[in-house]
């Protein structure tokens, strides 16, 4: 399935215009895999949410700060990592948007949606930033 492609990445300055570009990058990178079109669509939505969060919340829309999207292909899984130059956040502060009291909130569904369409989500750190790692289990 990998056909020589094991890890690819792209970096760009924070601009929401790049969300569409990231999605296309992701779709192209998966074009030779056997993942169903429907699953690609849902994972692409997770990626969009992660990139938007990186730009808006991580980099605070600062056009001088970069976002990196990295896609790693393994035999049994695909790992998608989206990095920003922010300080991260405490995931325990996230509220459940499906609770009755939150249903009419216009915000707060991004991370929730990410979690629905991939098999595992991790919040990760490196020297110069914060990231989110999405794992797509190809055995499922």
């Amino acid at each position, binding site marked *: 399935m990998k056909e020589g492609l094991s890890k690819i990445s792209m970096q760009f300055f924070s601009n929401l215009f790049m*969300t569409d570009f990231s999605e296309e990058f992701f779709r192209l990178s998966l074009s030779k895999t056997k993942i169903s079109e429907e699953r690609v669509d849902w994972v692409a939505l997770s990626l969009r*949410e992660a990139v938007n969060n990186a730009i*808006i919340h991580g980099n605070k829309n600062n056009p001088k700060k970069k976002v990196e999207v990295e896609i790693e292909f393994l035999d049994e899984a695909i790992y998608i990592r989206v990095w920003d130059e922010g300080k991260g956040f405490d995931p325990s502060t996230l509220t459940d948007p*499906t609770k009755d009291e939150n*249903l*009419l909130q*216009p915000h707060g*569904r991004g991370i929730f*949606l990410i979690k629905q369409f991939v098999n595992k989500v991790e919040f990760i750190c490196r020297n110069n930033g914060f990231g989110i790692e999405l794992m797509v289990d190809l055995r499922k």
Partner: protein
Amino acid sequence: MKVDVVEKKGVTVLGLGGKITLGSGDVKLKEKLVAELSKGKKKIVVDLGEVSYIDSAGLGELVAAYTSAKKQGATVKLANLTKKVNDLLDITRLSTVFETYNSVDEAIKSF
């Protein structure tokens, strides 16, 4: 995102097309809806039949439309949902907030 506004049997129908995503379609929906509410429109159907894609910001925009309308005594109903949009409403439990209909005509008749 494309937004067409038509009046049908006393109901304002906002026909959306394309993507409702952060940075693309969400603002247009808000502008159009606010414009219709300011004209005193009370019965609004949002036709989502031509919407190819919606993200969390787009869902938030639909919620904002719903709450803005409610505050002004208006009602927003959704029609023609694609399977993906329908799935997203179910997953987020927004299907318990919105009245949804298989067609615009059904939504109009429900008022």
